[in-house]
């Protein structure tokens, strides 16, 4: 076992309204891969952002190579040899691969940048890592997987002693993950300390030496990977049972009427020949990796983006949805993945947000019937258990989960029969999550139908009656919940052309 190179002790960090990190400890050793695990929102990424100087910690110490440090910003951390490979890619899409790798520290020949030399150095770097990428290629033209490899190469070229991988495999194919693991093993032999953040248990088993688990912003414990089972780790991650177990069979009768039928939907590069059916009272899960085209499919269906071709039938009748107004008229409601941008108006009150999609029902001649608006909003606040002092409270003051409930209330006033939930629990804490789940179950029990786009595998398995998996704009499979597993979904989600 290698010696300790970096220790984080008692790290505390609060954001307005959220205690994101509560005295968390972490220890990174030379020549070792440490898995950092926890559910979404457990605080893994926040901890790593504190380490690399993106966030300032409120309390605690970081000791690196025997000295206490506090990195001012990511480039200071980089210079010291602590680098992070981000979940979201940080690339300059107009520049070449080599120009990206050497950005901020170009190789110069006198006053001019020596692009040739940079290309050579990048080539050497790639050769060392057994990556095959042309350094002269424009970054924006590479696949997501190749872009990720470039990020890693860039991190390594900083002469890193500690590398943090923040869900590096999220967008990679199986072959690319194999390639990544080869690189990581290589780096381990070179005595580099690594942190590997991932949700995928089999990857954790395959590549890591120890596992540190976090839950709700706290440190839970650390295990030796080879001595522990999958269940050990899951138990530590979940701790208390707040969700229902995964669904084992569909709650929808086989002969339930089809309320929505989509045939050969095409829209740009991200939606290619997508067909599916939605039955009455069903929750239809849409799973896939980042950039699989799920949101794009929903936006095209809803009329938010232009579609190139494809037919949509509602209750057996062909409809022509050209814009969101058309979709709303047909009884479709869309809860956007990006609440703040598309879902709510944060600087307006709960009541104003609730009535927004159905203004005409709240009009008294030319004027808005404030009283009715408040009454209806209160009904929804009570029904959805939205935590807000009054309906006059501005939405910006509510937590993420309660904001989401306001969006749901908005669509309920329209009495939509088909609801599209795009990442319904993103950025919502665990307690509020299960409330949203209960609410979704109540909605389908009332005979509404839900399409749920979700990147959280556990969420898909818990909520869906049927799962559709997409990859690179195509539908790669459809699974009844009784046959859906993390593995079967992941297999379909990485089935590229």
């Amino acid at each position, binding site marked *: 076992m290698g010696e300790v190179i970096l220790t984080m002790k008692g790290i505390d960090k609060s954001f307005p309204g959220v205690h994101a990190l509560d005295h968390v400890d972490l220890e990174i050793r030379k020549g070792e891969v440490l898995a950092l695990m926890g559910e979404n929102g457990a605080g893994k990424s926040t901890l790593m952002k504190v380490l690399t100087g993106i966030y300032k910690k409120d309390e605690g110490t970081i000791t690196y190579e025997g000295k206490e440090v506090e990195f001012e910003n990511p480039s200071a951390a980089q210079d010291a040899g602590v680098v992070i490979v981000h979940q979201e890619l940080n690339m*300059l899409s107009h*520049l070449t691969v080599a*120009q990206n790798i050497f950005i901020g*520290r170009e190789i110069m020949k006198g006053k001019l940048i020596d*692009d040739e030399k940079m290309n050579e150095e990048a080539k050497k770097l790639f050769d060392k890592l057994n990556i095959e990428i042309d350094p002269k290629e424009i970054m924006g033209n590479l696949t997501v997987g190749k872009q990720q490899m470039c990020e890693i190469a860039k991190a390594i070229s900083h002469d890193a002693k500690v590398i943090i991988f923040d869900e590096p495999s999220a967008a990679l194919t199986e072959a690319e993950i194999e390639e990544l693991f080869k690189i990581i093993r290589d780096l381990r032999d070179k005595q580099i300390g690594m942190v590997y953040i991932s949700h995928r248990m089999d990857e954790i088993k395959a590549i890591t030496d120890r596992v540190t688990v976090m839950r709700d912003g706290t440190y839970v414990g650390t295990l030796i990977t080879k001595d522990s089972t999958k269940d050990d780790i899951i138990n530590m991650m979940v701790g208390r049972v707040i969700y229902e177990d995964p669904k084992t069979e569909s709650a929808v009768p086989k002969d339930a009427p089809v309320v929505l039928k989509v045939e050969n939907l095409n829209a740009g590069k991200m939606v290619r020949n997508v067909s599916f059916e939605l039955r009455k009272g069903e929750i239809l899960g849409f799973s896939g990796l980042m950039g699989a085209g799920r949101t794009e499919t929903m936006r095209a269906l809803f009329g938010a983006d232009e579609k*190139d071709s494809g037919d949509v039938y509602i209750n057996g009748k062909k409809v022509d949805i050209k814009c969101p107004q058309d979709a709303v008229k047909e009884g479709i409601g869309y809860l956007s993945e990006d609440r703040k941008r598309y879902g709510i108006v944060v600087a307006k009150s709960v009541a104003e947000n609730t009535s927004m999609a159905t203004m005409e029902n709240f009009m008294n001649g030319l004027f808005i019937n404030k009283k009715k608006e408040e009454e209806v909003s209160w009904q929804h606040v009570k029904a959805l258990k939205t935590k807000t002092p009054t309906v006059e409270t501005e939405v910006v003051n509510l937590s993420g989960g309660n904001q989401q409930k306001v969006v749901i209330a908005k669509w309920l006033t329209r009495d939509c029969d088909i609801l599209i939930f795009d990442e319904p629990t993103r950025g919502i804490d665990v307690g509020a999550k299960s409330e949203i789940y209960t609410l979704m179950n109540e909605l389908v029990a009332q005979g509404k139908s839900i399409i749920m786009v979700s990147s959280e595998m556990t969420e898909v398995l818990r909520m869906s009656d049927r799962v559709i998996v997409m990859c690179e704009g195509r539908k790669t499979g459809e699974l009844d919940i009784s046959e859906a597993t993390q593995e079967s979904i992941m297999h379909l989600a990485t089935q590229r052309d």
Partner: protein
Amino acid sequence: MADNKKKSNALTNNALVKKIGGQQLVVILVMIALFIFFCVASESFGQYSTIVSIMDFSYYVTFIAIGVTFALMTGGNDLSIGTGMVCYSLIGGFLISKLGLPVGVGMIVTILCGMLMGTLNGFLVAVLELPPFIATLCTMMIVRGLGSIITGGVSLSWPAADAANGWFRSFFKMTVGNTKVPVGVVWIILAVIIMSIILTKTKPGRYIIAIGSNKEAARLSGVNVIKWHMLAYIICGFFTGLAGIAYAGTFQTLTPGTGAGLELDAICAAIIGGTSMYGGQGTIVGTLIGVFLMCILKTGLPYIGLQANWQQIIIGMVLILAVLMDVLRTKKRA
């Protein structure tokens, strides 16, 4: 069948957009076509004197277009360049003709004024993070008023070519025997070469592209984004100053309060030449090609009987077309 038809439609669309990618070639062809069109439509267009006047017109447009290309590369814009160019030129001219200072001093002050205003623009955009469109719209108002105040609201001229201190005009146009030679073209070529190298081969250029491409990624890579972002506007100001000298060298009289609208010629030229309003993309050579398309268009229109008001309508439409191409190009990338 209907499906097939749609598919083939999509294909031709794609091919069309790809061609727009090789835009510079298209622009050159359009330029040649325009030139031929004007020659055919008007007998007097094809003469040597027309070429000289196209050239005359191109100097100051090229300078502000090169400058604004740098602002555009960062994903910003600079609307103050048209009015600014005339303002700085008025200030320089005031020093020469009213205060009797040497022409050289007037030229240096003109450039310094441009750089000063560029610094202010850069400060507003890069440090205070104002939207470039609004920030430079405001500085445009400021320079417009400033030019009038300093000159007392009256028109003035830089020394004429035959005056004792009119030597600077031969920077742009020399008379050899009875022929006028547009020597300014040398400066244009020089400026294009130097700025191309700066944009593609030096750190400032690289970082300006990086900022326009993904500012946050550049910042996280340790690039001092504020500094380089400001520099883009200072470069733009510097070239606006140069344009002020070229403007004074081309026109006999400078009138306070004019120049508004000329920035659109430059912005239009840059976008036609392949610079993206969304930042990160563009070349100086492309901008130069765009400038000449604009200059041929603006010089040629009066020859077919379309005077100033028509010119504005047509420039407006060309700009819409150029921006539309940019939007399509960017959509396809995304």
